[in-house]
């Protein structure tokens, strides 16, 4: 029997709604701002931290040690999945991959930005297999170094991969199948290696990786960034070692020039720019978590679709874990005469849910455009305003994953002691109940964090709307008139309420 987690209690729901009302009133009353706070704090200037931060980012040994740890864990996942017990809650492959890594990854973005990409085992293994070096630059680099076809040089491949991964995760149910989890892990290594062996630099990370791009886009909201210490030094730089690399350091894997870097979306935190910069001009900095999405990030149409896609997919994750989703699928399956895993019904349900979010967004954008007097093309509004989707998706993603992490992450210690689950029986109902009550943090703390995250997402989305909306109003020839952005504010309210409603429902446990 699969159990459900209790949803967010009404009291906490009301707290979130109260916060939304206050923030909405504030957004309506106060005039639109001219610019966001660009205050940053360079970590290399902190007296006690300075030395440590410099050592961490400049020494390849630390990064190599971390990569080794994650590669070992990753290989253990593959081994356990292929050779271990197929009981999902007893096998390390499913528990570590889906309950810990997949659920927890998003929290690493919240604190550390794209740090995961720096230690990603898919890329590390690909790098070792193709370059045949542990960390130093390989010359020749053993790659065909072909250019990625122009049509693929967008975010679309990553979005399609993310949709495919969601289908595998929620439709086919690889989250409860250790063998399939191991097979998909192997597939990702094959894809990363093939891409590295065929295309120049790390095209997989830049264009194809669904995890990397999700992490990258969410990290627009991270409080950390890797940026030049002094922009003038970069402007005067003639060698561009950050882009081309030096004798020992690989070039930037994702074609970024540090002097022009404005957003985290494609940075993999590999630290190559830090190592290769001859002027020691690259450093980690603390910043306002919203500043990039609010004003720095450059709007692009394909990226807008990715952000809307993230919003649709995160909502769908929650929706597909509601008990009523089963009833819907059951009714659809009856119409389609579907049987077995009901995959056709699931697929229709999944694409229908995603299309609904896109249509609702487009509708609200069209309404905003109408109020603006049709002075700005629809495509431009669609692209520029898509940034509001990012915090909404991020906040709900974290709130939803927190449920998985703190309720289903219990028992990981025991699984580490017997990663293959050898000789283990499935969890009995008593054990499932016991796990249910032994959460990593208390249930009240969980609810408080979830409510806080919803308010956080709403607050950042409102900020983005106010800043980006002002620029669009100016472009449409309006000096003020923030009421014209009311439909988009309505969209932010609507999506937050939808996410809040999802959170307040009982959610089916993953395993």
């Amino acid at each position, binding site marked *: 029997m*699969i159990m459900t987690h209790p949803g967010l209690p009404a009291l906490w729901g009301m707290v979130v709604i109260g916060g939304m009302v206050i923030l909405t009133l504030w957004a309506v009353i106060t005039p639109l701002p001219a610019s966001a706070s660009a205050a940053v704090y360079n970590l290399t200037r902190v007296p006690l931290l300075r030395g440590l931060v410099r050592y961490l980012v400049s020494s390849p040994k630390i990064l190599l040690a971390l990569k080794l740890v994650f590669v070992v864990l990753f290989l253990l996942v593959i081994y356990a999945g*292929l050779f271990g017990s197929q009981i999902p809650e007893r096998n390390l492959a499913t528990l570590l991959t889906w309950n810990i890594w997949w659920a927890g990854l998003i929290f690493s973005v919240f604190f550390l930005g794209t740090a995961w990409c720096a230690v990603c085992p898919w890329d590390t293994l690909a790098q070792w297999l193709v370059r045949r070096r542990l960390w130093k630059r390989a010359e020749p680099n053993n*790659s065909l170094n072909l250019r990625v076809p122009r049509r693929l040089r967008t975010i679309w491949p990553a979005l399609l991969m993310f949709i495919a991964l969601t289908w595998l995760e929620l439709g086919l149910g690889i989250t409860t199948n250790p063998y399939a989890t191991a097979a998909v892990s192997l597939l990702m290594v094959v894809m990363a290696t093939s891409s590295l062996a*065929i295309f120049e630099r790390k095209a997989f990370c830049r264009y194809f990786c669904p995890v990397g791009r999700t992490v990258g886009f969410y990290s627009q909201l991270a409080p950390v960034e890797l940026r030049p210490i002094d922009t003038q030094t970069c402007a005067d730089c003639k060698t561009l070692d950050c882009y081309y690399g030096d004798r020992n350091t690989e070039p930037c894997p994702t074609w970024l020039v540090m002097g022009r870097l404005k957003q985290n979306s494609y940075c993999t935190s590999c630290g190559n720019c830090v190592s290769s910069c001859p002027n020691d001009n690259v450093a980690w900095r603390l910043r306002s978590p919203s500043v990039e999405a609010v004003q720095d990030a450059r709007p692009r149409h394909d990226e807008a679709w990715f952000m809307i896609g993230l919003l649709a997919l995160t909502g769908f994750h929650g929706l597909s874990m509601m008990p009523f989703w089963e009833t819907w699928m059951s009714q659809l399956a*009856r119409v389609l005469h*579907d049987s*077995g895993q009901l995959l056709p019904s699931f697929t229709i349900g999944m694409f229908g849910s995603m299309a609904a979010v896109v249509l609702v967004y487009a509708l609200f954008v069209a309404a905003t455009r109408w109020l603006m007097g049709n002075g700005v093309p629809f495509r431009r509004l669609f692209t520029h305003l898509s940034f509001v989707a990012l915090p909404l998706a991020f906040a709900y993603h974290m709130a939803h994953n927190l449920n998985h992490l703190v309720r289903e992450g219990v028992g990981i210690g025991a699984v580490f002691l017997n990663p293959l689950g050898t000789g283990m029986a499935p969890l009995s109902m008593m054990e499932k109940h016991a796990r249910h009550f032994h959460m990593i943090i208390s249930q009240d703390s969980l609810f408080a964090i979830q409510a806080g995250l919803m308010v956080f997402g709403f607050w950042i989305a409102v900020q983005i709307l106010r800043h980006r909306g002002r620029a669009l109003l100016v472009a449409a020839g309006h000096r003020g008139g923030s009421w014209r952005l009311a439909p988009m504010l309505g969209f932010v309210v609507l999506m937050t309420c939808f996410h809040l409603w999802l959170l307040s429902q009982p959610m089916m446990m993953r395993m």
Partner: protein
Amino acid sequence: MKRFAQFVFAITLVALAASASAHHVLGRPAYSLNEDSNTPPSMQVETQIGNYFVTYMVFPAFPRAGEPGRINLYARNIDNGKPFTGNVTFTARDDTWFDTAKPEKLGVQVIDDNVFRQGFVFKHDGDYIIRAEFHDGGEPYLIDFPLRIGQPSPVGPLTLAGVALFAVLVGGSLFQRKRLQRDRIRAAHRDERSHSTREEGVS
């Protein structure tokens, strides 16, 4: 304030009570162990077809070749909740690629305490498709479900990944070597041409 607290308590109670009415994910295998009975761990799948909601359980959860196992199938009408009472035919076929062997009939079962029970013994480990077939209202109902006998073989994914990586790395390496060789030959020809042009100029 007291009423508000009562309201919150009621909502929480409803949320907690909802967890008691939990069920399987349709079409997804679930492994369970009932500590209150002496039955071994079982694999259970719930699905539906047409007007019927179907539940099947496999004992033991991970059957092995040469060891007897059992399938319990339960079908009830979605509209009126009544169980299906006719005959159910069970067949098994190999689920490997390019397999042309005919499906083998496991048996025809009549209802017994609302359940159709089909025993089986497979000679070899492998992936099989079990088909449960019945007729109702003049329409055939076919439910296919996969059954794994023995531990799944790790050879498939490992071999595929190994072959793919080998092909990419060796293919890439050969291509690269050829390209370098071609560049070297071109450079040599270029040098030769410029050298002979210089010599002609001198003479």
